């Protein structure tokens, strides 16, 4: 059903044509720095163990940035894949930008790569046809109330400039997210993403989910608001880390006191076992950002509980006299890795003893951003544990606590094992971010509702 010829080189060759069209469209004194994003994805949405919306999306976007002296402007345009039409569209875009440059000002914060650093990374996937994947999934879940989404097919990122730089990143992967529902809001959520599909692995994962569904089916425990011991799985930690990625590590947000970690520029510290870095080497994001800057393999952000770095985009580097480090414009990590601890995952519930085992968190937001305080909900597989044994699922609870307590004074342990979680976001297109996180045992976590 889907175009699974993701890594056959056709798209890369086509991108090369675009680069040539862009170079030819320039007038004397002009430069361009242009990024490319495309995918050919089969999305299959499921509900009640059936198919709700199956379809195919083919999209190609080119962001042309035209530069003349210190003036620049950009035009992002969808492309049809037909070079004759697209040549015209690119030409029109460049012409429009050229006219606009007459009306914009010199940009004091323009920073362009000072070296040409081309790169190429292609990762092929061995994926069956999407309809086969769906049939396998629904068959494995037969008799259960399954709801979820399959996204499969190739994703591409590229960069080209008039200086001759060419960067290419292509990967053909699948991302499967599904929940098995017991009733109302009681469910077990599972995810599986990767480059190789295996029916045997799918069946094993589904069997694990069905086992957990039996725990969810137990009578529900309702907890009063208060402070409880808590173990956060890596999947729950993904939500905490995800919120911190929203302005927390941004060089611009730190420089302008808007980061929830800004107090760490002063005396505030996290627990000395806490370390965060942008680990491009260990993730799945491209090794270049949209303006053509190379991303270092690793950017330390927090080390031994201290703020030691930030995500610094080229623009922020110029504005605040910092060194750029390959950050995107939003200065959010795309491969955040947290240092593991010493607690064996298999011993986590024993170490928790009595408290909440939180499988998923949901809808986090800052309730007092400068103080690093965040709120959010428990969701899916969250259980009350007594003496290291799961007793009951709990009614959803709202937490409201600070990162300085959760990953600071109240952090009891981090697991020795980390989980690499590929981002399933599909807003506008499939994301290529990931996180690598341990679980966290907290001596106290504040629940308010």
């Amino acid at each position, binding site marked *: 059903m889907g175009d699974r010829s993701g890594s056959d080189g056709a798209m890369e060759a086509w991108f090369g044509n675009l680069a040539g069209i862009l170079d030819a469209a320039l007038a004397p004194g002009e430069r361009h720095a242009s990024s490319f994003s495309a995918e050919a994805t089969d999305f299959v949405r499921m509900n009640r163990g059936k198919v709700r919306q199956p379809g195919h999306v083919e*999209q190609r976007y080119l962001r042309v940035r035209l530069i003349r002296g210190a003036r*620049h402007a950009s035009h992002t345009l969808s492309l049809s894949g037909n070079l004759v039409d697209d040549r015209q569209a690119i030409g029109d875009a460049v012409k429009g930008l050229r006219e606009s440059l007459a009306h914009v000002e010199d940009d004091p914060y323009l920073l362009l790569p000072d070296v040409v650093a081309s790169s190429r990374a292609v990762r092929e996937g061995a994926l069956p046809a999407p309809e086969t994947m769906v049939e396998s999934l629904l068959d494995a879940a037969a008799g259960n109330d399954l709801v979820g*989404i399959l996204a499969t097919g190739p994703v591409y990122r590229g960069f080209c400039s008039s200086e001759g730089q060419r960067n290419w990143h292509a990967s053909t992967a699948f991302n499967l997210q599904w929940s098995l529902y017991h009733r109302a809001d009681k469910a077990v959520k599972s995810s599986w993403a990767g480059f190789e599909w295996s029916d045997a692995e799918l069946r094993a994962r589904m069997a694990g989910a069905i086992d957990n569904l039996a725990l969810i089916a137990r009578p529900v425990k309702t907890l009063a608001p208060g402070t409880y011991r808590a173990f956060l799985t890596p999947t729950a930690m993904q939500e905490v880390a995800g919120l911190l990625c929203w302005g927390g590590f941004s060089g611009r947000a730190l420089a302008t006191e808007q980061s929830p970690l800004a107090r760490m520029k002063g005396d505030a510290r996290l627990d000395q076992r806490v370390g965060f870095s942008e680990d491009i080497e260990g993730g799945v994001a491209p090794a270049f950002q949209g303006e053509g800057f190379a991303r270092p393999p690793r950017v330390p952000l927090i080390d031994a509980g201290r703020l030691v770095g930030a995500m610094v985009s080229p623009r922020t580097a110029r504005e605040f006299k910092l060194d750029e480090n390959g950050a995107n414009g939003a200065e959010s990590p795309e491969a955040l890795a947290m240092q593991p601890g010493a607690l064996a995952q298999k011993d986590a519930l024993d170490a928790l003893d009595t408290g909440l085992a939180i499988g998923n968190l949901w809808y986090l937001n800052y309730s007092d951003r400068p103080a690093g305080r965040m709120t959010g909900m428990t969701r899916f597989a969250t259980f009350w544990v007594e003496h290291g044994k799961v007793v009951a699922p709990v009614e959803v609870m709202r937490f409201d606590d600070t990162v300085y307590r959760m990953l600071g004074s109240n952090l009891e342990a981090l697991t020795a094992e980390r989980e690499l979680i590929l981002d399933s976001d599909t807003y506008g297109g499939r994301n290529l971010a990931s996180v690598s996180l341990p679980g966290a045992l907290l001596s106290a976590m504040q629940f308010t509702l």
Partner: protein
Amino acid sequence: MPPLDSLLPSFDIKADFWSLRFVDETSEAFCVRRNVAQPLARATDRGAMASVYVDGGYGYAATADTSPSGLRAALERAAAWARASATLAITDSRTLPRPAPRGSYASPSLATTLPDTRGWFDLLHGLSKDAGCDPRIVDWEASVDVVHSTQRLVTSTGGDIVQRFRMVIPSVGVTAHADGITQQRSLNGQRGICQQGGTEILERFGYAGSGRRVAEEALELLASPNCPSGTMDVLLMPDQMILQIHESIGHPLELDRILGDERNFAGTSFVTPEMFGTYRYGSELLNITFDPTRPEELASYGFDDDGTRAERTYLIRKGILERPLGSAISQVRAGLPGVANSRADNWNRPPIDRMANLNLEPGNSDMNELVASIDDGVLMETNSSWSIDDSRNKFQFGCERGRVISNGKLGHVVKNPNYRGISANFWRSLALVGNDDTLRVLGSPYCGKGEPSQVIRVGHASPACVFKGVDVFGGEG
């Protein structure tokens, strides 16, 4: 848009029904931050979504290739998915409507001109200069986004709709910092001002003079005490009410959530099908309409993306739940009435049940009466934080600015005002609803939902409202 009349006869697709939905959207983003013009960003996004019903199945295919061969390929690909999934489909597409709508829609003042690039930057430089008026203002920006969108829906049954939109989204925001305290203030929130039309939108909100006002309020917050804690009354201003309506009425009433489609991602709903017609959602004062007919409101339109004609409809009347936000397809699936709310955020996403314009109808109380009704409480304005559970029940919201109300009088400003509650109870504590003078037409360009995910534009109009006995609290300190 391609000349479809000449193309349509060539689409010999073996299908029970098909449609093509074209989107042609251009946007420009102008921004001045810390008195420096940010790079001009322009976008053009053109493509088509093919939807096909075959043998009881349904499939879609999205393409930016709108040539005859590109459209035909998309229709065939959608048909292939429909055939492949027919035996697995949750809904037999033979039971679904096959609309043949004809008509058009246009945003208000579509023909009026907007400032040129230089004109926008001049306006924003003025605002930025005003906003950056004090060394304690450490970051500030003024921006305007302008979007033109033309959408056309053509169906195999002879339907043909063309809708043309223009949206203007002005924004001002500042960050103040001193002595270890940081406070943020904006003009009606992060792009809360978002309407269809032209420069009259700027005048409606006093945009040109707003930079200094926003900055002064941020500086005032720096010197203000934390919001008090306790159970008390709240007076929520429209730029917080829109969020309250959105999260704890809009999302729980989406019929696809009630049908379970969103349970793996955005969540389910505490509302169940049997509640419609009898459930008391709020006090007698609560009247909620789905209103795509208010011209300036962001999500006004003539037809939804499945071709259903859009009409003003009560969802909640005198506090009683009447009908869900359910599109024609969801109505068939659930056996419930609904509204024209099948919407996609672009050509490359299939339509799902969304909010559009969801409004709280004004009452009779003027602002003085709203304040006078409160012995012990807080006025809160401009949403800054939002979080709610996956059933859309347990919520916690924060605002940029509060003012204490004691014995019916407005008092000092407080920072970090927050409140929490449960949707199923909260709306029953609605005690007073402001009149038309207190109403503002606002919205959000950023409502996220769906698998694959979509960010859609929604409009909300609301007066100021008083709620009794709410759990209020302040910041960390």
